[in-house]
């Protein structure tokens, strides 16, 4: 799992690559090229955090753009006490949550999605010829994944956010905890609880856990 703070810890003299902190200082002095480098370094982390919250690539892209613009405007408030990426992710998460709570999203939720209706999902295994186990396995796996995707979407937001951010492999638990403003222990419990709820629902849907 890549850690954001590594860029801040290694000095430019050792690697020849400026650290995030050095780029921040240059950007604070008005160096747009330095800020552009910061955007390139962190765009994926910011975008995926936003995607975990809003679950739409278009909206996540807008959130990422807003995040970097806001970060540039508030660069003079960054004191370097935390890693730049952690500070940036906190901004991104706040903006993503604001967007999630926005009126547009609320209106979108009024229109039900046909994919969330579990009763309409076809059982692929019924179409298989008898004895074709490998194809059956593949279809069961595909069906299971589709069902998990649906169930993740129905998780309570606190559990879903924790599960998606931790499961992305993009952030450390400390970074996620800073984003969500919860202790690391609480975050770990949420991830575990999200998994437990998912398994419980899958068992209720007929999947044998063992």
């Amino acid at each position, binding site marked *: 799992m890549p850690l954001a703070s590594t860029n801040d810890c290694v000095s430019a003299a050792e690697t020849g690559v400026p650290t995030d902190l050095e780029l921040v200082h240059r950007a604070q002095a008005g160096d747009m090229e330095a800020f552009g480098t910061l955007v390139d370094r962190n765009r994926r982390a910011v975008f*995926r955090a936003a995607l975990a919250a809003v679950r739409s690539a278009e909206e*996540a892209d807008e959130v990422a*753009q807003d995040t970097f613009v806001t970060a540039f405007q508030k660069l003079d408030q960054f004191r370097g006490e935390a890693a730049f990426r952690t500070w940036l992710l906190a901004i991104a998460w706040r903006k993503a949550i604001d967007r999630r709570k926005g009126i547009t999203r609320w209106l979108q939720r009024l229109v039900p999605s046909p994919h969330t209706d579990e009763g309409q999902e076809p059982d692929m295994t019924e179409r298989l010829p008898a004895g074709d186990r490998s194809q059956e396995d593949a279809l069961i796996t595909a069906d299971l994944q589709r069902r998990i995707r649906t169930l993740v979407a129905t998780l309570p937001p606190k559990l879903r956010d924790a599960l998606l951010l931790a499961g992305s492999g993009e952030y450390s638990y400390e970074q996620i905890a800073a984003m969500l403003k919860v202790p690391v222990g609480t975050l770990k419990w949420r991830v575990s609880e999200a998994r437990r709820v998912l398994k419980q629902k899958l068992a209720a849907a007929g999947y044998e856990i063992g």
Partner: protein
Amino acid sequence: MKLGNSNTPPEERLDAAIDLVVREMVDVEPRADLRGRVIERLERRDASVGRVFRPGVTWTWLMAPVAAAAVVVLAVVLWWPNQPLVTRAVTQIVVRPVDTRLPPPIPHRDDRPHSASRTPTVTREDRQIAAPVLAETQPGIEVEPLRPIAAITTRPVALRALDTQQIGPLPLAPLAQIAIEPVNSSAGRN
């Protein structure tokens, strides 16, 4: 539904499936031109707002004199000596005649200031003056003079003396002798 026929236990396969799905849900790459769009937005904003809002410039200091002036104005407004309140008559009776013809104006008394109130205020004196005038100008309307009200007398409230000896529980009546008849066990059957 069995989770396949592989050697791994079903719970581990379920965990793996959850991991895979969660990773896929956020495994999307951002658009490559994000940097260009961000820089463009910042430069456009810079051009429209000027160089004041660049992070290197402490633009808040420029707003300090404005804020200080606002504080001074607010303080002056708050501490300015208050004007004495103008008291007005609380009860205002507006006379609206039923007839379309208006009665002649009430003779104005010199001791009342002209600008005391904008709406006509009718006092008891005005009504005493207006009544005969109204009777003269409109013969159909008769105004009866006020009659004195008879004195209202009330009887003094007196409490009767209470005899506390009479207050108390009544003696219980003696109970009649209770006779218990023997139960006939064969009567209730059948």
